[in-house]
């Protein structure tokens, strides 16, 4: 990486490709988030891509400036350290979930509950393709779609075109916790 990006507005996906058509979405990033930060370290090669999911405005600073900032500003350094710690926790949780949880429990609900996306009349603010949900949950398009349909049939979520809304927050949260605890 040669620099770091701060998102002013819009949503992006940070994803990794391998082969012709295999993709894993590592995370979604929205207004106020940073992307490119994982490229800081001994190995400056950051083998992932970032793509806009809607019109996005980002501010870019080169790495030298960012590193100089960290050297003199302890507040930013502390905040970044906490941010990395949270990211690591989330990454570990996600790795465990991808390996052990059922597809249904992994992420379609998470995608919708994520505060990142914001909501509009209960629906996430922008259309999220089923393929993106599949790539985020580490499953196929067909499986992701079937799980979303099941959740909709159970009345937990609502599907409208490519928009999703949570209808039963508590029930869904309980379901996710149950899945995470392996009960």
């Amino acid at each position: 990486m040669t620099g770091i990006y701060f998102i002013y507005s819009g949503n992006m996906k940070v994803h990794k490709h391998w082969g012709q058509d295999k993709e894993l979405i590592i995370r979604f990033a929205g207004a106020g988030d940073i992307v490119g930060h994982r490229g800081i370290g001994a190995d400056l090669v950051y083998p992932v891509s970032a793509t806009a999911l809607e019109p996005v405005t980002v501010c870019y600073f080169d790495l030298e400036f960012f590193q100089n900032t960290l050297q003199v500003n302890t507040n930013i350094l502390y905040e970044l350290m906490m941010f990395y710690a949270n990211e690591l926790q989330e990454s570990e949780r996600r790795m465990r979930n991808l390996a052990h949880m059922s597809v249904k429990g992994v992420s379609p609900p998470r995608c919708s509950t994520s505060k990142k996306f914001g909501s509009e009349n209960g629906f996430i603010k922008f259309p999220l393709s089923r393929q993106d949900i599949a790539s985020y949950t580490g499953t196929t398009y067909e499986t992701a779609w079937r799980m979303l349909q099941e959740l909709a049939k159970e009345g937990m979520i609502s599907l409208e075109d490519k928009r999703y809304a949570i209808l039963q927050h508590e029930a869904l949260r309980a379901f996710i916790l149950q899945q995470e605890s392996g009960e």
Partner: protein
Amino acid sequence: MKLTRKACHTDTCLVCRLCQPAWKPAIDAHKEFRPQKGELLFSKAIP
């Protein structure tokens, strides 16, 4: 850009009066990008 902690009074202030002249060129050098839907911001970035 040469920066030292000794040059900064507050240590935690990014643009205090002493630092500002040193930081300003770098701050002004930031770039703004406006990728559209589906556009790549970066791809397998290699320095």
